[in-house]
């Protein structure tokens, strides 16, 4: 019988080496994730690049045609786009710097030991985990001109004589949405920095104390340098998220009044969602993507630098 020989052969010399089979299984495990990300991220991004070359307004199908770079030319001459970029800078800088300061203060407080610390920690994290629309609605309710809490409190304290329409005043709308975003983002910095604080060895503080360093000196020469990596990473992540984050402004003001709170991400959203101008929305998306890629590269360079220092 020839069967005996054919059975023995694979055992002596497998078709694929063990290492090759390992690799094959490795790639096999990645098939679902590759399919999912190709379908929901990669393909849509390529599609956006493609769409940006067309005049594509959903409600005007008869005007659908290839326009080359016309959408990009429109972008460069679009005053609202440039305004939205400037507003994005204000929005990101205002939100992230105040979130950082508030979060740092919160982390220092939560780092102390006191009774009920676990409960207080969970409670203070709440603003960060609830849905964005819930945050937006809570604050819209507080900012209401006629029956809102804020106007009432300011009136009672004698700080205000006339009711203010926070979200429909061009000068106040941006500070009002930033304040809301600060409320939402403080817990993020608080937990990140708290994790950083807990990782600092207490011996360092003890040694410094023995050497006669004051609280302020210990803070400046131990806490800040030890937290530096986590500060850089947390701030960079937060800058990206805030730049991308459209929900709050979209719900609270829709970018108004008169584009006073229009940031680039809400502008993109409105072009797709309200104007159904897919060609231009895709163009704005590509612009957003390029800005994000540039920032990500900058960010990776900074974090690499940090690793080599430590």
């Amino acid at each position, binding site marked *: 019988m020839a069967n005996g020989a054919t059975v023995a052969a694979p055992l002596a010399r497998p078709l694929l080496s063990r290492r090759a089979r390992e*690799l094959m299984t*490795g790639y096999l495990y*990645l098939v679902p994730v590759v399919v999912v990300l190709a379908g929901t991220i990669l393909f849509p991004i390529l599609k956006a690049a493609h769409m940006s070359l067309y005049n594509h307004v959903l409600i005007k199908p008869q005007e659908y045609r290839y326009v080359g770079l016309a959408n990009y030319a429109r972008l460069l001459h679009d005053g609202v786009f440039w305004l939205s970029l400037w507003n994005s800078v204000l929005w990101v800088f205002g939100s992230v710097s105040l979130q950082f300061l508030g979060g740092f203060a919160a982390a220092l407080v939560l780092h102390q030991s006191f009774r009920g610390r676990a409960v207080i920690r969970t409670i203070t994290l709440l603003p960060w985990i609830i849905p*964005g629309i819930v945050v937006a609605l*809570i604050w819209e309710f507080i900012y209401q001109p006629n029956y809102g*809490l804020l106007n009432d409190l300011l009136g009672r304290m004698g700080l205000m004589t006339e009711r203010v329409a926070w979200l429909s005043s061009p000068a106040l709308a941006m500070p009002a949405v930033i304040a809301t975003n600060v409320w939402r983002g403080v817990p993020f910095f608080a937990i990140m920095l708290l994790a950083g604080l807990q990782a600092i060895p207490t011996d360092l503080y003890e040694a410094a104390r023995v050497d006669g360093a004051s609280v302020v000196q210990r803070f400046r020469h131990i806490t800040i340098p030890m937290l530096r990596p986590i500060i850089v*990473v947390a701030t960079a992540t937060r800058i990206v998220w805030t730049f991308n984050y459209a929900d709050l402004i979209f719900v609270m003001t829709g970018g108004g009044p008169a584009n006073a709170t229009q940031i680039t991400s809400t502008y*993109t959203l409105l072009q797709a*969602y309200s104007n159904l101008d897919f060609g231009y929305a895709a163009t704005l998306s590509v612009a957003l993507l390029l800005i994000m890629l540039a920032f990500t590269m900058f960010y990776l360079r900074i974090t690499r630098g940090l690793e080599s220092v430590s």
Partner: protein
Amino acid sequence: MRRAPGRDLAERVLGGPVMWAGLGALTLFAVAPFIWVLLASFKTRAELYATPIVYLPASLSVTNYVEAWTSKLTPFSRFFANSLWVSSVTMVATTAISILAGFALARFRFAGRQTFLLIFLATQMFPAVLLIAPLLSQWYALGLIDTYQALIYSNFSFTVPFTVWMLVGYFESIPVELEESAMLDGCNRFGALCRVVLPLAAPGVAATAIFAFVASWSELLFAITFTSQTEMRTLSAGLLYMVGQYEIQWGQLSAGVIISTVPVAILFTYLQRHLIQGLSAGAVKG
């Protein structure tokens, strides 16, 4: 611990009154807006729109909750069921996909591994609005508008990269020797993953699963763009739809806000510790 002799005045002030004041301010800052909306959800119409404003409702009436839950125009019971279904399916599928991917990236040293990891990190930096127009036209072409599939698939775009990134870290923290001994005993890789690695990584896997659930539960932009019928709206989309109605019903709306918040708040108390570990582990790796 800090009561060692040599505490100077600044230290005593900072550790005592300043800390307690800070703690009070922090708690008030985080909680006061919630309490205000919680109170509003129990107020009657007259109390909500009274001048000067009424702080405390006269009675704890649940009328707003009942009306929001049973309303024909904005049926929160339906929105709740939609959110529950979309978030649960997203959670299960995301977890299955990321366990496989996370395990492969943690264990197999194949070409392109670093590139993969970098892609997962980079996709977390993409704005959701970038995907709105292309995904809408994609789901439209596939006839998936007003279906749960469109929402679930779209949610993968932000749940999967993060959960894979977190799970790679968890799996790497489990000693590879355990698997190897299981494989010597006759398990194949997949068997070792199911019988040895997963039980050990269970808390981490549970945390990533809950993260996927909470993130999908909060999702707004996809939910409003890819659905048009009332009965397909999720809670977030339903809340926005309610604002778009002729006049904002703050009573029902506050009840809706509380209904949307409670499940994530409960899940988060469990998730908190693991998520923080994952976040800071991911952050340190950069």
